[in-house]
């Protein structure tokens, strides 16, 4: 890690305005503030426009999801995971399902794995779209927000088409998918793949070479790589500092090793670098989706595990055995062998890990979520060190946190 060279923070030396002897002002930003992206409260001390000290006060969106999980059966936890990071639901579904499947020793059929990969990547694009829109509007570029939301609407329709839900899809279940992909899914994905590259190009045309955007983002939001690793920052922020970490490559899960894609990195370690990384990630996601589209295997969409996976309605109504299993799974759930497992996936925000402990009953003993937003948000105090308010807003956007994900 130490061999990766990160540039010095250009801001710290250059533009600190020395205002002599002044009184500090304490400003309470949030919990209701246009650019805290949720209910985050930041107490900042100001010397003129320069922030001298910042403290993040998290916990306003604490929902107790981790505790709630303990009173649900294994399958019932899936909808709760949707609500943790409500902008990348399917990544959460995936992490949880993979963790429980690991405990159960279930092998998920290839078709389900491919669909999981495809939809996770669409989720990544969806999440990055919201990040792009909101961080651009934080810098005053209003229109980008609306352009991003047009594509997000298309993605949400796609999710609705697959799962019947726009946001809280719960489409991945333990043992596979909730349903097979609906007829005509190829047409939808094709349309999506056709339209997205030109849209990404449009945003890049708007922002990449925009002198004001570059001025506002280049050299802004610096934090040293060592500090990031200490705070537990993961995802695009680390990749923006030149560290090539991506769980999809490092610890492949759900047959990610069968796909070819690049892990984009930037060495500038600023808001602009993170922007470039995320834009490139969207293009790479499109590549993965294209490969899923081309090489989608035929077959079953759930594992062959009648004691765990609900039988389909047809079998349930015609076969005695299936009816019994259905009754057992619905009323008391299935049992998971005692043990504990940690399963991490690369969510759009970074490493999303589920640590699942089972005591052998039909309910989880404990589920701990290692959420990327929480780690990323820890860097706030460092990012806000002696920068003007305007820059703090830019770095806040570049962190790309979701408060639901932070507070659980």
């Amino acid at each position, binding site marked *: 890690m130490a061999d990766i060279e990160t540039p010095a923070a250009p801001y710290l030396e250059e533009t600190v305005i020395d205002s002599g002897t002044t009184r500090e002002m304490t*400003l309470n930003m949030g919990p209701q503030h246009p650019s805290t992206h949720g209910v985050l409260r930041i107490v900042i001390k100001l010397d003129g*426009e320069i922030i001298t000290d910042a403290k993040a006060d998290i916990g306003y969106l604490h929902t107790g999801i981790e505790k709630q999980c303990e009173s649900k059966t294994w399958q019932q936890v899936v909808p709760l995971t949707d609500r943790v990071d409500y902008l990348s639901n399917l990544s959460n579904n995936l992490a949880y399902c993979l963790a429980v499947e690991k405990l159960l020793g279930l092998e998920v059929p290839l078709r389900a794995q491919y669909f999981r990969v495809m939809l996770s990547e669409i989720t990544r694009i969806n999440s990055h779209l919201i990040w792009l829109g909101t961080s651009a509007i934080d810098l*005053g570029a209003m*229109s980008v927000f609306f352009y991003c939301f047009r594509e997000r609407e298309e993605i949400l329709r796609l999710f609705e088409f697959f799962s019947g839900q726009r946001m809280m899809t719960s489409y991945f279940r333990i043992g596979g998918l909730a349903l097979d992909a609906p007829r005509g899914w190829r047409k939808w994905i094709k349309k999506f793949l056709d339209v997205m590259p030109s849209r990404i190009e449009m945003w890049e045309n708007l922002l990449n070479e*925009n002198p004001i955007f570059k001025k*506002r983002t280049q050299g802004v939001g610096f934090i040293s790589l060592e500090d990031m690793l200490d705070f537990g920052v993961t995802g695009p922020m680390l990749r923006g500092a030149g560290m090539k970490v991506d769980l999809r490559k490092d610890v492949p899960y759900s047959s990610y090793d069968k796909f070819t894609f690049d892990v984009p990195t930037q060495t500038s370690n600023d808001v602009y670098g993170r922007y470039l990384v995320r834009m490139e990630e969207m293009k790479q996601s499109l590549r993965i989706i294209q490969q899923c589209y081309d090489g989608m295997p035929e077959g079953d969409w759930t594992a062959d595990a009648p004691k765990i996976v609900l039988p389909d309605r047809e079998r349930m109504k015609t076969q005695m055995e299936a009816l019994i299993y259905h009754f057992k799974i619905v009323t008391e759930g299935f049992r998971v062998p005692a043990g504990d497992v940690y399963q991490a996936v690369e969510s759009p925000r970074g490493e999303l890990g589920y640590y699942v402990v089972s005591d052998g009953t039909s309910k989880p003993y404990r589920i701990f979520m290692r959420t990327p937003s929480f780690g990323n948000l820890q860097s706030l105090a460092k990012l806000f060190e002696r920068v*003007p308010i*305007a820059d703090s807003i830019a770095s806040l956007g570049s962190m790309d946190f979701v408060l639901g994900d932070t507070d659980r």
Partner: protein
Amino acid sequence: MPLIVISIIKAAVVAFVLLTALAYVQWIERKVLAHIQLRVGPYRVGPHGLLQPLADVIKLITKEGVMPSHVNKFFYLMAPFMAVALALISISVIPFGTKLEIPALGFSTPMELTDVNIGILVILAISAVGVYGVALGGWASNNKYSLLGGLRSSAQMISYELPMSLAIVSPLLIANTLSMRALAESQAGFYFGFIPKWHLFQLFPLQIIAFLIFVIAGFAETNRVPFDLPEAENELVAGFHTEYSSMGFAGFFMAEYCNMITICAVATHLFLGGWQPIFPAPYSDYVAPLIFLLAAAFLIFHSLQTLKTRTWDKYTFPAFGVIFGGLGAGLLGVVAFVPWLREAIIPLFWFVAKVFLLLFLFIWIRGTLPRFRYDQLMRFTWLFLFPVALVQLLATALVVALWN
């Protein structure tokens, strides 16, 4: 008619037209911005949201003005009043056209409120005082965001006053006058019969630079994107008017749009030839009726198609088409047969058209660019705009001195 009666009538007409225009500039802004951003904009109140400004005015007037307990009451109440009053006053020295002359009554009056021979100085002075409205509003609110907004605003407006004044001086040097009317009149005529003798096209390329500096400084003066730091929503919530509601807010809001109109009008007079047409006279007279007739044809053509928009467009499109068509036909008649009315209306049309073109630029930029950072904004004006304006002014002065 005694001068005072004419002046009062003119003041009433100008105030009415200006206030209506303010409301509709805001409607245009919302509509244009919406279409840039893939939205529809105001749509429900009246056909295509045309009555939305009226609804907004009624809402703002009837709304309860919440005054926080911690404000400095006197300055808190005075600030928006000051902002809007100063913004409205500056329109009084701007001429809108040549003159209105009714030969049948033997009546003649210039189309402006007052022809001050130092008109441009009056506008500069008033816009300089206009800073107080914003700064006091930010300070008197006793709110930290407002304070930061007011601070930013006053620093920004004072800094941008300098390059703006320098940019203003160069057309003054060419025209050798400070009166707005004389400025506009000095730009009549055409080079080679087709390039208008506007200041913009004189002393190429010095005056184009001056125009750009003026427009950039104008953006900063009116706190518009990309210089909207005083009300940067994402940083300072609403900046200096965070604590204002009801008419207090409306005051600041109106002042912003009024300043925009003033800046555009001044730019038109200084650089874009005031009411001078873009083509030589006999042809340019027909542009105005042509535009109205085209609008009418467009509306009627669309009303004949199967409309996918409002069901009411079936009725409102032809109605507006007929209104525009009537206006166009009327204008055509005026241009052809009523010389005294033509002398009044055609210059007015050109002036308003240029002002609206510039206003459209303001709105367009708002839909396109991100916002500067505070220190970048200051660096931009002091280290770039100011020296360029200075050099441009020196060069212009030199050329003008050598020419004469």
